[in-house]
């Protein structure tokens, strides 16, 4: 047997060892050099700014970066301050969803639950974005300045085992040449008591992130997080904006030559608020 065959035979290694080797090492020594130190210094400033924002009103702010040593890919974590929607303002359609969520939890208890998303979520992929807003009883608040065909839509409604609706998520995807866009709207109801954290990850161990803010015509502020090139050769540009108790996000995935176009799209989107 030669070396290359023996390399192939490593596939015989016990799956438990394989899983264990892919987990984060138990003890790590952090080396604060180069851009890491810069990022850490920036993070201190950002955390202070975030704390100030948390005290002052609605919005999103960075709480930390995720390194590839601890997670799959690098990324960042945001916290958000968003008003809670009263469920009384939502459509009666949600009563049926609520009953379905209770049923899903019951199915889980009896071992017959076969859904894809966990019993707490009801998912519909058939609605367009406008239909999703209509279904939940609100006039469409998904603000997109372009007239593109929707590539995918997903309405997700999540609740507790007793059927109390806690979160509503409306995702809409678009494609513009090689640029991929995803516009999201998230609503949290009065029943949602958890802390509001969002995590964003990308592939690659050396991806860097930068934060800027864009003012909107209404005087609001859009938080923008941009990334350097990831292992797939793409960059990410994401805008976060809270308005009327809805968290809006626009995620743009693009390649370097489309950078100017991606920034323009984000600015157009922010200008809708």
């Amino acid at each position, binding site marked *: 047997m030669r*070396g290359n065959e023996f390399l192939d035979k490593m596939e015989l290694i016990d799956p438990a060892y394989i899983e264990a080797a892919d987990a984060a090492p138990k003890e790590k020594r952090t080396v604060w050099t180069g851009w890491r130190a810069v990022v850490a210094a920036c993070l201190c400033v950002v955390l202070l700014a975030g704390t100030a924002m948390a005290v002052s009103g609605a919005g999103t702010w960075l709480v930390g970066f995720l390194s590839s040593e601890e997670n799959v890919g690098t990324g960042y974590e945001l916290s958000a301050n968003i008003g809670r929607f009263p469920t009384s303002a939502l459509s009666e359609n949600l009563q049926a969803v609520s009953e379905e969520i209770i049923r899903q939890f019951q199915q889980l208890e009896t071992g017959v639950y076969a859904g894809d998303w966990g019993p707490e979520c009801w998912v519909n992929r058939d609605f367009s974005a406008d239909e999703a807003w209509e279904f939940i009883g609100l006039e469409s608040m998904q603000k997109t300045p372009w007239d593109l065909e929707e590539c995918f839509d997903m309405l997700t409604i999540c609740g507790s085992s007793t059927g109390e609706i806690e979160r509503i998520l409306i995702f809409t995807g678009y494609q513009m040449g090689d640029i991929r866009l995803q516009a999201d709207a998230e609503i949290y109801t009065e029943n949602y008591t958890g802390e509001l954290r969002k995590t964003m990850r990308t592939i690659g161990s050396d991806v860097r992130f930068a934060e800027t803010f864009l003012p909107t015509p209404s005087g609001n502020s859009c938080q923008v997080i941009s990334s350097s090139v990831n*292992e*797939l050769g793409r960059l990410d540009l994401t805008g976060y904006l809270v308005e009327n108790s809805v968290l809006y996000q626009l995620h743009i995935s693009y390649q370097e030559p489309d950078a100017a176009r991606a920034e323009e799209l984000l600015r157009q989107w922010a200008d809708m608020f």
Partner: protein
Amino acid sequence: MEDERIVDLFLARDENAVRCAAEKYGLRLRALALRIAGEVQTAEECENDAYLAAWNAIPPAEPRDYLYAFLARIVRNLALNRCRDRERLKRAAFVSELSREMEECIPAPDDLESRMDDLALREAINGFLGTLGEEKRNIFLRRYWYLDPVAEIAKRFGISQSKVKTTLFRVRKQLREYLEKEGYTL
């Protein structure tokens, strides 16, 4: 979704199995393929082919407790084969380098007459890995299973590259001695 439920979907021939597996492990599998093949397009192909291979393999396989390892093993094989088949020189050179290192572990590299069967080899390799400390074992796996570059392993474990190289050298030597001592011939 729990692995067990995803495997149930495979067993029930429900195509949602592939989607759920992709949602849960797609990123990690693609990253693994990308590390080996070094090309985005190939990495995506390997990932997609892995789901198809899993679809064909389950049943009879039922990897309820090790779905990620099961899928990752398929991706690893596919990516290694693509590297060799398509003569991607740079990546092929990387794989050759690893193969040379692996050869150091083999007591009789040219002896094709006395190959161990896979069952015995599985027992031997896992028996040896069981004798190693956790960090050494994980460093060995990161290099020869996940095919990580030395620099990335050093970063992952917070140690110097020279320490990684020394550790790998010693583990290779130990593996060779273990196989010889146990009477295994490859």
